[in-house]
């Protein structure tokens, strides 16, 4: 049986994303992010706040589909 190895990982806590030991993160059951723990310049990443819900992409597809669906019966009736 292989033992767990430890390393620094990026985790998501309630209000911040921060660096944490992998062993502690797995024990505590927090989400481990697939993100780097260091910046491009080699320095450790600072904790960053999160929590703002992802904004849905602006799209006209739904509106276009509804308009199309509404138009189709009318087109049929004119045939």
């Amino acid at each position, binding site marked *: 049986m292989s*033992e767990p190895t430890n390393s*620094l990982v990026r985790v998501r806590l309630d209000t911040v994303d921060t660096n944490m030991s992998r062993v*502690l993160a797995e*024990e505590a059951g927090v989400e481990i992010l697939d993100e780097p*723990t260091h910046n491009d310049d080699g320095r450790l990443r600072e904790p960053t706040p999160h929590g703002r819900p992802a904004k849905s992409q602006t799209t006209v597809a739904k509106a276009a589909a509804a308009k199309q669906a509404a138009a189709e019966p009318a087109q049929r009736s004119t045939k």
Partner: protein
Amino acid sequence: MTILLPETVNSLGKVSVVMVSTIANTAAPSLGTEINATTSVNVSCFLYEAAAGTMTTNKGQAPKKLCTVSQFQERGIASVDVGDLSYSHHPQRALTDAANKAKSSLLDGTRWYMVVRSGKAGDTALVAADRVDIWLVELLNQNRTTMGDGEFAQFSILQGVIAKANPIYESILAA
């Protein structure tokens, strides 16, 4: 004038240190969601010495003007320093073993709110309304060494600490 006879507290065994991953309000940390979070580690019984932090303000003298005959000191920049951590570990146990909880958690590069409670037995849990001092720190390398002398020495880890903010003194734990 009334003569005060202040009550004093023996410090032996009366320090607790909890490493907390995140604290939203350092003036009133939450006992339930922050101090007792699964990501917090009570290292009181791992540490050999109380984690000591100091805040020092430089003092010095500005150049004297011709017209003055006195010179007084001025306040310079302040610096915060937290002493190294020294704690026990078990070299032959897995990282997930309870004896290695401090070693596996206090990894090089992790950042913690070091919450220090003084004046109550160190082997008792923190409770609401406890007064604590809080140091925001980032940890450095974990150096394997021994603590103690000769036949009484124990395997330990010595770890440098970087202070990341001014200390918060006497915060009161919220429920």
